[in-house]
């Protein structure tokens, strides 16, 4: 569930054409200028009566994504194959349902009382997303929420893989949800990282991110599938809380570890879905890291954040879905909103228009505040 439509097909349709779901901010509750990736349906969505206590913007987004009938059938089949106790649930979010607390806090500030229907534990609490999704899907296995800012829902793949390898679970639902809130909109504005224009990753005129919201889920199982999750790499910059290492040292570590863990070399990768946020510092550091690992113009690269916006804690899962779909379709999506590639960056094979190519392996990068880096590698099974 994302600003460019509902479902994987809509996401791919938009991403392949570079058709952006972003628009100038028209939220009634936030007067910042700039562009956002809002999901229009979320305002009117109502959770069913038995789930009312969980109502918040984040869970509405999750609920909309969980309506995908193919996904639900796959989860139901996995439950009957393995039992609900043997399916793990590992989800990423950066701010969970904090928008509910923002509203409630305002009322507490004005009246001295919290709204009577406000439930912190079932909306804003970091684990609320996991418990809501477990309730909706009927899962009873071990679970955890990962919250490492913008790498959150990339790191979930590695946690799931480790739990499966350790024999704790037979399958896992992974995913991530983050929703628009004043915290991130004003926070990134304070850091002067919010673009006044539509975001343009790797473009010479880029000047910041456009924040989006999204929810995404995947089922990981040992059963045969057209595309596999192979391995990932995680690292820390150990450099600065909100600025990446200038040459992307931590990003390089994550990409190299992912390649080593997948038993692959840089030359095996046919496409990298970059983190590509469109901030000056991120794209510069990531381009340097990509050139260091793959060589100058060594691999086809695009950022799809021009379509979805930067969905923060959901970016990992959204871009994993884009990357796996690209592998299935053997199509490389373009970097949306690109006007003029930034020639001051380390040279990249930046994809300006969708390409049809044969490639077996692809990487998806996500980097976050705190210098938290994660690179994932997916491969075709044929």
């Amino acid at each position, binding site marked *: 569930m994302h600003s460019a439509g509902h479902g994987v097909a809509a996401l791919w349709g938009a991403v392949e054409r570079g058709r952006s779901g972003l628009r100038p901010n028209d939220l009634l509750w936030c007067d910042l200028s700039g562009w956002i990736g809002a999901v229009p349906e979320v305002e009117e969505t109502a959770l069913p009566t038995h789930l009312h206590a969980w109502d918040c913007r984040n869970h509405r987004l999750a609920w909309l994504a969980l309506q995908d009938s193919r996904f639900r059938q796959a989860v139901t089949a996995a439950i009957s194959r393995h039992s609900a*106790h043997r399916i793990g649930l590992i989800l990423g979010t950066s701010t969970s349902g904090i928008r509910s607390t923002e509203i409630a806090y305002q009322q*507490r500030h004005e009246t001295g009382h919290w709204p009577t229907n406000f439930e912190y534990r079932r909306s804003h609490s970091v*684990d609320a997303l996991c418990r809501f999704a477990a309730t909706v899907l009927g899962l009873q296995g071990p*679970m*955890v929420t990962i919250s490492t800012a913008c790498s959150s829902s990339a790191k979930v793949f590695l*946690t799931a893989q480790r739990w499966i390898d350790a024999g704790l679970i037979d399958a896992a639902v992974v995913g991530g949800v983050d929703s628009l809130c004043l915290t991130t909109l004003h926070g990134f504005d304070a850091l002067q990282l919010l673009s006044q224009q539509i975001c343009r990753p790797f473009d010479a005129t880029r000047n910041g991110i456009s924040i989006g919201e999204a929810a995404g889920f995947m089922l990981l199982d040992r059963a045969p599938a057209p595309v596999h999750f192979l391995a990932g790499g995680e690292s820390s910059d*150990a450099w600065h809380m909100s600025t990446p290492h200038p040459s992307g040292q931590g990003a390089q570590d994550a990409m190299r570890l992912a390649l080593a863990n997948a038993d692959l070399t840089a030359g095996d990768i046919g496409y990298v879905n970059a983190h590509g946020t469109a901030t000056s510092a991120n794209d510069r550091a990531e381009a340097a890291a990509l050139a260091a690992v793959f060589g100058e113009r060594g691999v086809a690269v695009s950022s799809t954040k021009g379509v979805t916006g930067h969905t923060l804690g959901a970016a990992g899962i959204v871009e994993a879905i884009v990357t796996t779909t690209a592998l299935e379709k053997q199509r490389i999506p373009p970097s949306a909103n690109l006007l003029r590639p930034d020639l001051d960056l380390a040279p990249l094979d930046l994809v300006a228009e969708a390409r049809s190519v044969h490639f077996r392996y692809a990487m998806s990068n996500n980097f976050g505040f705190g*210098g938290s880096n994660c690179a994932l590698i997916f491969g075709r099974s044929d």
Partner: protein
Amino acid sequence: MKSLHFNLHAAGVLAPGIDSLPALRAACRAGQQPTSISSEPLPSPSALPANERRRSSQVVRLTLACIEQTLQTSPFPADAMRSVFATDEGTGEVCQQMLEALATTRQVSPLLFTNSVQNAPSGYFSIAWRNRQSATVASLGLESFASGLLCAVTEAMSTGQPVLLVAYDPAMTSPMDELLPVRAAMATAWIITAGSTATETPRLASFAFTLEPCETSSPSAWPEWLPESWAAHSSARSLSALGLLEAAPNTVLRLTLGAQLLCLRRIDGDAA
């Protein structure tokens, strides 16, 4: 399921009235709650560069102080360990300050926002000790320690590296403490490995755990040596788990983890 094993090589504790592992073990042995439970001011984190030190929030001070204490007896260098940070609401006062600003002026400082991410302590840990390994933040409400332990042990198993597990809760400030009654900051840090390590590597004890569906048994009762009010702190369960060092081997501590119970026991080691 088969049981998973791990070794505990060093541990640190920072809680009101319990400021070290020996203090925790003494309290547990005596079966007595800490007498003074007023919180001491948290020290400025000396491991951070001076400019970062001044800007560090209470939760960063809490976690870095506990880590620093633990590293004193660690057989592994600080930059060689992966890390898992386990917390319920891991931002504490920062969360309240952020909400206050948004409800009034909407003027948020860049530093406040930077400190408002759940992984601020893990980020500062990596900066302080130049640790470029993976750092993860695991959260599951009051079950955050159990979920973090699961993450830490499986990371140690799959990578063969030592893992630093930090379980903590910053104190919530008014009015957020009306929603989340965490009134005292506390933290424990664990340095663990999985599998067999070199015999000369110092080790406090070895542990095993299994996951079992909740309906098979009940979670363990709250230990008498920990204040009842700490049951609202996810990290207090990690203090309870360190109490296994004083219990007879194979004493089982059952911790809720979603619809599962994490059944933890000490299997050997020098518990004296």
